[in-house]
């Protein structure tokens, strides 16, 4: 007889389980089991993967949970008595599964959703009891397993001999009949200790005494004995204690026996327990039979119990429809034609209507009309909120989406294929993604909950697994290593999986030093580093915790919360325990509402433009826009100056000129070093070029060298080649190179006549080896039948095979290209407002300080912090005096100053303007440290000047420092209620006694970097200039004038570090530095990485030697050969060694905010 494991934690029991559902199901099936349970801790995190794994292994799934139960006698809110396993009974049309979902949601309902909350995840026994019976039939639908972790089991180790029996009886009193079994577990620990055979025997006797069925489990945490050390490390990570500490408590698992033992091993274990209890063969048989009987009761039918793969959408009535949903959809599409295609007629109209018929037919057959209406409803709701929104992804391939205003891309214009989005052969709910302003995302979520009702909506979650850095930190903590030492090692781990740590030690130059220490372990007598590597590898990818997915919202009908357990998210809204991989199996409709910072930045810029230029005339003049037909300016600018970005024509020459200049910092999708190089080479002339550019700049095309032939053909250096004349129409727009998924679909269709739906199936199948060989057979046979020559077939097949898996969906590219174009348009016409928006919402990949440098390069004045002029956000401001008078500048924001609280910020802004420090203290009540910081940043300089004092900024800071030290009050100086500060000018400021030397520029810049992470007064490299001159360093702005292949030295502060995938699999490291005149992109190939070693990822200020590489008419980059740390002057290659470098004070000295300043946490 086979044995069924009823208590099994998968890896999705975060920081507890070790093995993946697939391994467990396969092992169980291989041993002849016919069913297997998944009972993760606190939730159904691994359940859907378990279902899938069981179905693949041909065994029945059993689902349950391992849950804490509050102590009835203790403090209900925080004290837990123990843990029990709860199994759902199956084959009852989901009654068991529903009860399980609701029970788990109960357990989470009181928690805060934030880590470290005071309330644990647990249920009261009363809740548990009430959920075990189906509310309609009153039949038991859940079974509770009282095992070694229950209060009963835990009491066995205590001194009070009768305590376990008392507790056991309490359970039997509370729980409905037939819902409790005793779980017998022995992990063969020393007699008398937890999980020992002797404890198992006592539990067995209790069950017998009270006529309660006993069942055998192994409380499994890992698939095989090999997993035991990993479980120890996870225990350490969960409890935040080292293994030696845990061993002393003792809190570690008592033995390493908690694996998925075979049926034979479990029978042997049963024998040992029965014999130790003094029972006989009949009792052994009963124990094993009862276990299997419970297993049979709990076998789950994925379809009838859990609704496997049955799509559920909100009820029609909820979205305000009272007729057949499909009729409604047809009507709305036709209503959209006049708006989207004004004046269309003739062949164009016929083609459009044919396409519409085609799409609607497929949607009707799949029964997805309600789905489209639901998405349209959400989309309409967002637009009504006045929030910028844009559909992204393959949804842009649908004419229906365009007509019902879900998407802004006309699929006919860009030749997008509906079948890439949805087809007859693909019966899963398609993805429609909506990008909204990031600052409005949470409001949009809340609105969706309100609109559809909280019983129909929940946020989706995501699993966060161990990556190299987290894994090495937790492995190091388990071993009790020094935090600092582990931190140093973690710093050097850069973008590789933890599972390849040992391999990386051999290959990566930045790990060379560490690898050496591992090698020398014998000499040092320290084995820990070697063990550290092994344990780090063991943690690879294991889930650490779930969090709110950045965009997924699940919409369902009124039964949604019967189908997924929910728990509070950090946002306060409920979050499903299921992740994106669980959506399709569970038939859940997921909408991606993604917060895009660029959308917020652009919305901000548009608002700033109106504020500064409150009429159409002003905007047209300021943005240098075309006068339009009637001379008053273009239609997309309203009379009040509002710009409708979505209506801006996609052919603005100034915009393309800006893109071609490669000065695209801040622009969506095209600001990275690699993209700036690509647009420099490609020189986009029209919107379609942007679509191609975005699609080319993907790992696949870069890796497989699609870019070079494309550029050669585009610029006419090499003739375009088509494998067959019939394919020319398909590949022409990309000069014969296959870039888009759409082209792959059409190629299949042209050569085999398979139809586009089938073609998309083929494209998907190509990602697996099995699928590939089937597709190849079909392709060769049918292409031959259509008369294509073997040569052509071979050639095209090679392309399809290698490109299909990573080509890019053109609909994605088109949807991305819209905000790319819009952001470049804003930068070309309204750079001040655009930069203010970027600073405010920080959408890009670079640290904010690089955009400050960009403003400097563009000649846009950066206006200093000012207590009366700075607001809670960045603002565009007309400069009134000085050399920049008349220009538009950007005033720094009070937001984001280190240590200044949100409340202080609010009060400062509410009280503006202030006429003195006393006035500021009295009305804004800000803390003394905050006043001092504002003084350091120069926020009082203008007040000070008005007061006519003779002291400088240093004197003022000193004065404030003294005040801070002499008074203990945290808030400002006490002011009596009703007392008004007299408008006498600032006596205090006037009387600050002068004496200290004024702060140097370096001091000021250091304060700015320290408190705001930006260098405003001058560029942080400026103080290095004399030394750089002696080194013979050249600046970014001069680079373009050099010939290709010139050897140069450059220097700057790191702003970007990237290791994109490359052809041949060899790592290439891109490091971009900023020297104050611009950005220099350098590339480190293998040898240069060897030379640079630890400097690659470990330093902020770099001196780089390299040769120039021309990348296009306007683009130049550097192929690096060597790098130095600029802050270590003694190592630098001065041409005249007799005058070595002197250490000069530098703004970065003593500043540790690396991430905010260099964009890199090295």
């Amino acid at each position: 007889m086979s044995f069924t494991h009823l208590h099994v934690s998968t890896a999705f029991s975060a920081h507890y389980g070790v093995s993946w559902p697939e391994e467990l199901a396969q092992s169980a099936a291989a041993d002849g089991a016919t069913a297997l349970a998944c009972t993760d801790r606190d939730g159904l995190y691994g359940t859907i993967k378990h279902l899938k794994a069981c179905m693949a292994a041909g065994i029945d799934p059993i689902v349950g949970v391992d849950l804490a139960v509050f102590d009835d006698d203790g403090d209900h809110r925080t004290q837990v008595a123990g843990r029990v396993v709860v199994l759902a009974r199956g084959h009852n049309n989901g009654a068991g599964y529903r009860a399980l979902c609701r029970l788990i949601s109960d357990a989470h309902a009181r928690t805060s959703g934030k880590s470290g909350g005071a309330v644990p995840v647990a249920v009261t026994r009363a809740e548990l009891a009430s959920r075990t019976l189906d509310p309609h039939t009153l039949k038991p639908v859940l079974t509770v397993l009282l095992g070694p972790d229950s209060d009963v089991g835990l009491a066995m180790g205590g001194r009070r001999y009768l305590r376990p029996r008392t507790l056991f009886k309490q359970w039997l009193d509370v729980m409905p009949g037939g819902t409790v079994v005793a779980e017998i577990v022995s992990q063969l620990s020393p007699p008398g200790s937890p999980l020992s055979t002797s404890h198992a025997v006592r539990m067995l006797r209790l069950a017998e005494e009270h006529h309660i069925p006993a069942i055998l489990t192994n409380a499994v945490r890992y698939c095989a004995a090999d997993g035991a050390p990993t479980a120890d490390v996870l225990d350490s990570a969960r409890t935040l204690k080292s293994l030696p500490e845990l061993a002393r408590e003792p809190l570690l698992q008592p033995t390493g026996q908690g694996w998925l033992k075979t049926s034979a091993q479990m029978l042997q274990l049963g024998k040992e327990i029965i014999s130790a209890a003094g029972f006989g063969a009949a009792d052994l048989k009963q124990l094993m039979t009862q276990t299997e009987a419970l297993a049979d009761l709990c076998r789950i039918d994925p379809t009838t119990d859990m609704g496997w793969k049955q799509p559920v959408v909100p009820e029609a009535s909820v979205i305000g429809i009272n007729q057949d949903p499909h009729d409604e959809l047809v009507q709305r599409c036709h209503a959209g034609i006049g708006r989207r295609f004004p004046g269309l007629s003739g062949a164009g109209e016929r083609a459009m209507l044919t396409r519409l018929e085609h799409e609607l037919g497929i949607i009707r057959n799949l029964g997805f009309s309600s789905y489209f209406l639901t998405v349209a409803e959400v989309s309409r709701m967002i637009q009504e909120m006045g929030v910028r929104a844009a559909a992204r992804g393959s949804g842009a391939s649908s004419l229906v989406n365009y007509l019902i205003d879900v998407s802004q891309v006309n699929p006919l214009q860009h030749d997008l294929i509906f079948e890439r989005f949805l087809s007859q052969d693909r019966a899963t709910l398609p993805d429609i993604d909506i990008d909204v302003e990031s600052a409005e995302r949470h409001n949009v979520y809340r609105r969706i909950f309100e609109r559809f009702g909280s019983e129909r909506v929940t946020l989706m979650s995501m699993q966060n697994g161990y990556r190299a850095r987290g894994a090495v930190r937790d492995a190091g903590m388990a071993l009790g290593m020094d935090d600092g030492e582990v931190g140093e090692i973690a710093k050097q781990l850069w973008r590789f999986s933890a599972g390849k740590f040992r391999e990386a030690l051999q290959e990566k130059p930045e790990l060379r030093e560490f690898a050496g220490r591992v090698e020398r372990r014998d000499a040092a007598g320290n084995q820990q580093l070697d063990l550290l590597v092994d344990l780090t590898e063991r943690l690879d990818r294991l889930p650490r915790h779930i969090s709110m997915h950045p965009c997924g919202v699940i919409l369902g009908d009124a039964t949604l919360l019967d189908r997924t357990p929910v728990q509070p998210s950090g946002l306060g809204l409920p979050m499903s325990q299921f992740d994106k991989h669980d959506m399709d199996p569970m038939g859940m409709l997921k909408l991606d509402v993604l917060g895009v910072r660029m959308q917020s930045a652009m919305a901000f810029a548009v608002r700033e433009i109106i504020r500064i230029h409150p009429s159409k005339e002003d905007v047209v003049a300021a943005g240098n826009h075309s006068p339009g037909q009637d001379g008053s300016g273009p239609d997309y600018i309203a009379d009040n100056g509002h710009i409708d970005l979505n209506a801006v024509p996609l052919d603005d020459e100034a915009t393309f000129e800006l893109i071609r200049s490669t000065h695209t910092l801040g622009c969506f999708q095209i600001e990275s070093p690699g993209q700036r190089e690509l647009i420099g080479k490609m020189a986009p002339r029209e919107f379609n070029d942007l679509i191609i550019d975005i699609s080319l700049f993907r790992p696949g095309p870069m890796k497989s060298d699609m870019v070079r032939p494309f550029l050669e053909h585009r610029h006419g250096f090499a003739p375009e080649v088509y494998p067959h004349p019939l394919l020319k129409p398909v590949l022409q727009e990309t000069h014969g190179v296959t870039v888009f998924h759409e082209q792959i679909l059409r190629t299949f269709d042209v050569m085999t006549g398979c139809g586009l739906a089938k073609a998309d199936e083929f494209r998907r199948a190509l990602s697996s080896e099995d699928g590939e060989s089937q597709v190849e057979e079909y392709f060769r046979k049918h292409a031959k039948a259509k008369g294509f020559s073997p040569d052509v077939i071979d050639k095209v097949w090679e392309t399809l095979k290698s490109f299909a898996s990573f080509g890019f969906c053109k609909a994605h590219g088109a949807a991305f290209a819209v905000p790319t174009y819009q952001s470049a348009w804003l930068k070309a016409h309204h750079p001040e407002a655009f930069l203010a928006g970027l600073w405010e919402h920080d959408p890009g990949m670079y640290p904010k300080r690089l955009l400050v440098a960009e403003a400097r390069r563009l000649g846009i004045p950066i206006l200093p912090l000012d207590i009366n002029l700075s607001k809670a956000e960045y603002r565009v401001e007309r400069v009134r005096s000085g050399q920049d008078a008349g220009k538009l500048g950007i005033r720094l924001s009070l937001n984001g100053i280190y240590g200044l609280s949100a409340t202080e910020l609010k009060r400062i802004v509410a009280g503006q303007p202030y006429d003195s420090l006393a006035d500021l203290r009295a009305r804004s009540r800000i803390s003394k440290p905050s006043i001092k910081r504002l003084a350091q940043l120069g926020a009082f300089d203008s007040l000070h000047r008005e007061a006519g004092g003779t002291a400088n900024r240093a004197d003022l800071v000193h004065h404030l420092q003294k005040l801070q030290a002499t008074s203990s009050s945290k808030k400002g100086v006490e002011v009596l209620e009703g007392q008004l500060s007299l408008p006498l000018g600032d006596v205090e400021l006037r009387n600050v006694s002068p004496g200290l030397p004024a702060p140097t520029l370096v001091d000021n810049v250091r304060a700015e970097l320290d408190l705001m992470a930006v260098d405003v007064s001058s560029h942080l490299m400026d103080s290095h200039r004399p030394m750089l001159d002696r080194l013979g360093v050249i600046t970014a702005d001069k680079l373009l004038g050099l010939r290709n292949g010139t050897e140069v030295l450059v220097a700057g502060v790191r702003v970007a570090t990237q290791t994109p995938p490359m052809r041949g699999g060899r790592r290439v490291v891109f490091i971009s530095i900023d020297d104050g005149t611009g950005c220099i992109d350098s590339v480190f190939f293998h040898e240069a990485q060897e030379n640079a070693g630890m400097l690659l990822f470990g330093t902020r200020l770099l001196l780089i030697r390299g040769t120039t590489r021309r990348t296009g008419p306007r683009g130049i980059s550097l192929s690096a050969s060597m790098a130095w740390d600029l802050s270590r002057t003694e190592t630098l290659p001065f041409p005249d060694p007799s005058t070595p470098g002197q250490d000069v004070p530098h703004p970065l000295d003593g500043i540790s905010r690396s991430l905010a300043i260099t964009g890199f946490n090295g």
Partner: protein
Amino acid sequence: MGMFSESVDVACAPDGQPVSLTWSGRSYAVCAESVRWYERRQWWDEVSRAPLGSGQGVVDHEIWRVQVLPVDGRERNGREQDEPLTLDLTRHIGSGRWRLLRIHDGLRPTTA
């Protein structure tokens, strides 16, 4: 109770239970049902490697408590042996070799 790490030859029945053993050149027969359990190791101090796939036996080791009588009926000191001797044995997971861990002598464990 004495802590030992002497090598012992143990013969087992097909179900894995020890039947007889040879220790310091003398033969003993197991005279009562043996008890088995596992004990933890401070493996983070004891092993230098724990790569994936080698984890079995890293965390714990198997202990057998056996009661034995000498086959020739005589104890080491020549006295007649009527009371069985209780021994804790451990089996190394990789080599299958047995070692003697502890001797329990009647009520009072002694150090041999």
